[in-house]
């Protein structure tokens, strides 16, 4: 790029008039990060912008809100015909039920919310137990190591594991049935359902929570507990007035991160439920593969809606994180 040494630059920067130094320095400075920015623009920002712009255009390329409105529309008749052979349509009771796109968003939001909340509270409980519970030290390190693995154990294999556990022939299903006489499938449980998918997502949500929240709990200083005790606080008061306010922002922030994590996931759901549960990434997947909505721009609108939801979630996450960092430094 340049064979001027660093000290030359420093001197040039100090002695030369600012305008001259700038005219000379800018290109070489920016060349160093050019590959990164070209990569990011070409393969991250432009493809996303392309979809976002497409969401506001009709087939002729003119500006329109129709696609966004289309998300909220009930499916039309042409979709109904399509329903006979399209895989993403739900076949729950043998009838062809038509989910709206809105319903798919709603199921996705519910599953993401349920799995992130369950994962967050369970993860928090585990983190508190291993940090403050007085358990042997090896349990803490073993839990953290396992969490690192399990939080990355997602996708298709995770679905297989849960099918082998809670599927119709899964170990837990069979044991519950033969040993305890409890047929969970007769009681309405199904791994290919809302709760089945939520329970499966929790398998990577809890460890992610443990990995992220443990440092925050480590950040609770012993002195605070002692100070509270000196001032005559009970354990309950110490938790209510010290621990919860300090952990709260990072807890909420992590909940949001878990939400976004579940919301964009598709592989686990696709491998687990095939196409019997219409979460929004699966609808988008079917749309990309075969234009099941008969309107490419409606597909863009779905993608845009997903970005809006995860984007909003991340705005909140950043906001909560900056608040929590004030305490944990």
């Amino acid at each position, binding site marked *: 790029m340049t*064979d001027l*040494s*660093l000290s030359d630059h420093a001197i040039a920067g100090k002695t030369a008039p600012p305008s001259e130094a700038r005219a000379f320095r800018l290109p070489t*400075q*920016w060349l*160093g*990060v050019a*590959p*990164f*920015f070209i*990569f*990011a623009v070409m*393969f991250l*920002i*432009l*493809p*996303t912008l*392309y*979809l976002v712009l*497409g969401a506001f255009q009709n087939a002729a390329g003119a500006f329109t809100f129709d696609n966004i409105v289309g998300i909220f529309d009930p499916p039309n008749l042409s979709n109904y015909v399509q329903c006979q052979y399209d895989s993403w349509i739900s076949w729950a009771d043998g009838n062809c039920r038509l989910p709206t796109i809105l319903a798919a968003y709603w199921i996705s939001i519910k599953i993401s919310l349920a799995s992130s909340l369950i994962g967050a509270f*369970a993860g928090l*409980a585990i983190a508190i*137990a291993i940090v403050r*519970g*007085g*358990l042997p030290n090896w349990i803490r390190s073993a839990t953290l190591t396992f969490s*690192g*693995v399990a939080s*990355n*154990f997602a*996708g*298709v*294999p*995770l679905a*297989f*594991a*849960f*099918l*082998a*556990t809670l599927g119709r*022939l899964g*170990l*837990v299903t069979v044991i519950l049935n033969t040993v305890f006489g409890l047929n969970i499938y007769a009681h309405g449980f199904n791994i290919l359902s809302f709760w089945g998918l939520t329970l499966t997502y929790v*398998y990577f949500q809890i460890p992610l929570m443990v990995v992220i929240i443990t440092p925050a709990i480590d950040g609770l200083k012993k002195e605070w507990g002692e100070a509270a005790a000196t001032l005559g606080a009970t354990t309950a008061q110490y938790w209510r007035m010290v621990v919860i306010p300090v952990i709260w922002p990072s807890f909420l922030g992590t909940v949001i*991160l878990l939400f*976004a994590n579940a919301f*964009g996931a598709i*592989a686990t759901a*696709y*491998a687990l439920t*095939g196409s019997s549960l219409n979460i929004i990434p699966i609808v*988008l*997947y079917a749309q*990309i593969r075969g234009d099941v909505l008969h309107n490419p721009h409606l*597909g863009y609108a779905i*993608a845009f809606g997903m*970005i809006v939801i*995860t*984007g909003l979630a*991340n705005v909140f996450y950043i906001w909560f994180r900056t608040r929590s960092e004030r305490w944990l430094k």
Partner: protein
Amino acid sequence: MKSGRFWAWVVFALGAAYFFIPLIATVEFSMRMRRGVYSLDAYKVVLGDPRFQATFGYSVLAAVFTIILGVLIVVPTAYWIRLRLPQLRPVVEFITLLPLVIPAIVIVFGYIRMYGSSSPLPFLASGRGTDALLVIGYATLALPYMYRAVDTGLRTIDVRTLTEAAQILGAGWGTIITRVILPNVLIAVLSGAFLTFAIVIGEFTMASLLNRPAFGPYLQNIGANRAYEPAALAIIAFAITWGCMSLIQILSRFAPRSANRPN
């Protein structure tokens, strides 16, 4: 404190049960292939399947190229940001976090529409081009992890002094990055690389939508058509993830601990 410890044990036991029962169930299920006795037949069938070998090999290769591309993009950038353009740090950090905001399925949807065979950059017109696009897509997925790993590594070394010392000895930029900076952050780069490997090896969405013969779509296909092999594959995948994470842990023991002078 006594009751606190009791509840800690209860929570830990419940958590351990939730996490180990599926693993035990999967192991058990994977060995049920031969009627009446436990056997490793499912593993033999899976490992002997030529499609397993082909798709697994393909995904390993894709992961290796992803890691190379990721290192080529991330290391010089993170280095340059620390050395010369600290004011750009928030921008770069924001961009590296974008793949966590934009779901993979949306990114690959954009690729399919932008780089089709009639576009100015027809990646999708040929098989090789699509392979390249898949590797690029994986590199964007791995960007948040790779950047953070490398940036943490750079924080523990004195980038400015090392650079100036190398320059005094007459090194050019290429030499500085490949022979001074890279060896110093090698452990961080390797951690990022193993994490990337763990993410890429079973990735389904991008590979499937780009129609690549990768391991993820193969897993999905087996899952839809077989009974016992998926359980065996799940155990194999878990072992791979475990291996990658263990390597990262082992590597982190060799990493330098503290910064002499944080930049």
